[in-house]
Structures are given as C-alpha cells and as structure tokens.
C-alpha cells in the first residue's frame, strides 16, 4: 500500500547488540534522570499543610451579600438563574412584611435561594448578571462531600454573616483575624 504521507517510519527489526541486551546502560540512564530531579524545584505542594494562593480572578464558592446594615441584597429578580448556563440556580420570591425591613433591603426578596453545586460550572455569569451586587463568587471552593445531598446549597450556606449582629464571624470568614 502506498503511504499517504512521508512521515511513516518502517519498524526496524534488527538484532539488539550485547550492550542493549543487558539493559544496564538504559537503567543507568533512567536513574540519572531520577537523580537529577532531586535537585529541581518541586511542582507539587503538600496540600493540607500548605495551600496554594488563588489567582485574583479565581471564581469559587458563591456568597450572598448583605448591605452595610445587614439586610439581604437579593431581590429574587431571577437574572442569575436566567444567565446560568448550567441551570444551577433556583429561587422563590416573597414580599417583605411590615417589620422585616431590617432583614431585607427591598420589598421583594428571595425567600428560598438554592445553588446546585453539582451543576454549577463556576463561570461567574450569575455574578455578572446581578443588578443588586447580591451574589459574588468567593475565593474558596466547595468542600467535598460523600453525598449528593451535601451539594444543594441553600440560603443558610450562602449568606454572609450579618455585619451588624455577627461582625466577628464576618471578619473570620474574610480571614481578617
């Protein structure tokens, strides 16, 4: 058969020489490579003890933001859910009752807000779509879990600590102390 390209190489089936047959030379060659690597920089790190720094544009686990008075910013407008290419975000909206003004910033709020982390691809489009500065992708990743159930993140997982009533928790979450 005629070759289609001239890159094909015919297999050489000559007899090996004595030096090749005892493999000693090849073993020494391999050992030398291993030995050389003992003096080069290690590309891996010892993970739990040492942690690699994230890049400034890293997109990690979502947080739902509060304003400076501790009220939830999300108004359940649904723009994050419609922007989400993985359809990971669902929500249910409710109307703010009189007396709940210190909890929610606007008259409509997300009573339920869920992100399915199994579906999420961390593209950050929800963050970009949000008109209320309510959702952000933080610089951590979703912790691993043995069950699928553990990956449905509700509002209790996503909301940041209240800066008024739980300022200490917020500082801790930001890694300030």
């Amino acid at each position, binding site marked *: 058969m005629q070759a289609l390209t001239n890159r094909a190489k015919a297999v050489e089936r000559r007899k090996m020489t004595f030096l090749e047959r005892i493999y000693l030379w090849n073993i020494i060659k391999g050992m030398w490579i291993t030995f050389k690597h003992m003096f080069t920089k290690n590309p891996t790190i010892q993970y739990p003890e040492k942690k690699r720094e994230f890049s400034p544009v890293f997109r990690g686990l979502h947080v739902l933001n509060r304003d400076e008075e501790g009220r939830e910013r999300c108004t359940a407008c649904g723009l994050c859910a419609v922007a989400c290419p993985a359809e990971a975000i669902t929500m249910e*909206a409710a109307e703010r009752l009189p007396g709940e003004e210190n909890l929610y910033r606007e008259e409509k709020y997300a009573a339920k807000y869920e992100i399915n982390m199994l579906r999420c691809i961390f593209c950050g489009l929800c963050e970009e779509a949000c008109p209320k500065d309510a959702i952000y992708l933080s610089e951590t990743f979703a912790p691993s879990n043995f069950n699928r159930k553990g990956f449905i993140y509700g509002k209790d997982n996503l909301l940041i600590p209240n800066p008024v009533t739980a300022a200490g928790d917020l500082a801790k979450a930001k890694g300030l102390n």
Partner: protein
Amino acid sequence: MSEPTPLFKVTIDNITVEVPAGTTILNAARQIGGEVAPPAMCYYSKLQGSGGKCRTCLVEVSKGSEKDPRPMPKLVASCRTTVMDGMEVKNITSPKVLDARASVVEFLLINHPLDCPICDQAGECHLQDLSYEHGKEGTRYEFQRRTFHKVDLGDKIQLHMTRCIMCFRCVFTADQLTDKREHGILDRGDHAQIATFIQKNLQNEFIGNVIDVCPVGALTDKTFRFKNRVWFTKPVDAHRNCDNPKCCGEVQLWMRGDEVFRVTARKDEWGEVKEASNGKTGWICNVCRFDKKDAKDWVIEGPSKINRHSVIAQGHYEGVVKPQETLPEVLDGRQPKLLMDIHSVSQVNKPTVELSLLERPAHSTDFK
C-alpha cells in the same frame, strides 16, 4: 349607499402601501410591519380615542401629499395623523426621528424608577423594550424622582403609580369595557396620577383587563405578584367555557409544571389583546383571570408562539421534542431507580407549598 373609501398610496421608509382613506400613518406602517412600524406606548388599536399622549410614534412627513407636496414642518404623532394620497413618511430612515425618539424615551424614563428587578412586568414590559431599542444608555436627570405610595385597587390589582407613564390606556379600557368607570387621572402635570376617589375598590367583572393594557408595570396582577419571573413561566394557549357572555374565555396561561401562575389575554405582535375566534377583541373577565388557577379548569391548546427575541423565549418551550426514554426498554420495562429525589433536599418548589394558589404575594409565613 356611500361610495367605497378611496385607497391612498403612502410611502413609508421607501416602502409603498395602499391603505383606505382615514387610516393613520401608524396603522399603515403596521401593515408593512417589522421595524418600519413606529413604537407606540399609549396608542391601542382596540381602544377608541387612545393615542397622542406618549409621542414615541413620532415620524417625519417629508411630502404631505400628491396635491400639496410640502413636508410637514414638525415631526407628527403617527397614531393621530391620517394618511394622504402620495404621502411620504420617514421613520427609521430619518435621523431626526431617531433622535427625537431617544429624547422622548429619556423623558418617559425621567420619573420611572429603576426597579425592574422587583417589577413583575419585567420581561414583557414595553418601556423596557422601547428603551433598549430606541433609548440612550445613560440618564442626565440629577433630581429626586417623583414618588407615590403603592395602592391596592381592589384586592386583585396593584397600582404602582411611580411606574406609570400616563398613557391613559387603563382609563379608556374602564370606560369602554365596563359599565362604570371608577378610576381616572387626578391632578395635573407632574402630579398627575391614576387614582380612584378615596381609594375605592375597582369592582367590575372586566376591570382586570387594565393589567393587560398597561404597557409598564404600573398595574399588575396581585395574584401573580412576586410569584415568579415572567420568563420562567411557560406561556400556553388555553380556553374554557366562560359563563360571562362578554368574555371569550380564550386566554394565555403562564404555567410552571402543572401550576397555573397567571392568566392573561392573548397578545398580538404589537403587544395588544388579540382578536378572539368570535371576531371580537379577546378581553377576558375577572373570573377567568383571577380565580381559575387550576390546570383542570382549562382546555390547553399548546404552547403560545413567542417572539424569538423576547426573553420569554429563553425556555424554548415551542416545538420541544422529548427524547425517547431508552432505559425502560433496556431494563425490560422497569423504570430506572431514582438515586435522589430533589424534593428531599431542595427547599425550592416544594410539593407541599402551592404558591400559585395563593391570592396574594407569598410572605415569610408561607415558607414556615
């Protein structure tokens, strides 16, 4: 017998169309369709006397008629100007019109709040479309916006006066559709507002249609308030035998799963209520609109046609072909085992909480 109305030749954006005398430029342009038709916020072909308020349909008449070819000195409102024989009109081909329209949009938005994330009309709002297509990006307005308190017009209609653009459509609807109009415009100029005297309820069996004619989110359905976003609900054409002789019973259901979240009249490409199969305008009564929130009440005809450019089309409901389930075939008729029922974990869309059946917006107490 009077003579048949003569046909007038009118050229709009270099497209010639023949229309009967007495047709407005707007309606002639709508016969051509597409981008040539000027946008209209206040004109409503199904309501007599509407139009002439919002000025978004301004066009340039570059040639008055065959007999008097002088151009009209100013831009004219196309919904109120009738065609003349040989008239030449410029709409999107005239930079003057586009500039004037951008200014009109800016004026309409001066007092309009930026609360689209909260507003139930978002996604099907004519003002949103108008400002995207014809408006400018920024605002130059630096002052406090005019505000009003929100008002309940009866127990089913919510009035957000801050969002109103004073198109008068709802007033015409109440005048022409119902026996007794109970609301109108109070005050003048910047203080003008849609209001009822002493917060009177709007109680008339056709008053719900003011929700459909409202081009913005000023009049919204309280039974749908904050329940869902328009683009997450699936529009479906449906009908029922309504006892009311004036009601056509042909509606659009906005569903999510099997739940009917909202009932509206069917709309045509101009956002106006469509003609029903009996030839009359398809206004619907309050019973159909507010009280029939069960899919069993309706005969469902199929998904509605939604313009491809509308955000409502994002769900791709039309022409969906479900893939054939091969697993039961392979498993000798057994259904595959469900590894996790999402309702066992998810707090959203719980089968026990039927938000669509609530007659008011959901509150924190409903999720307890």
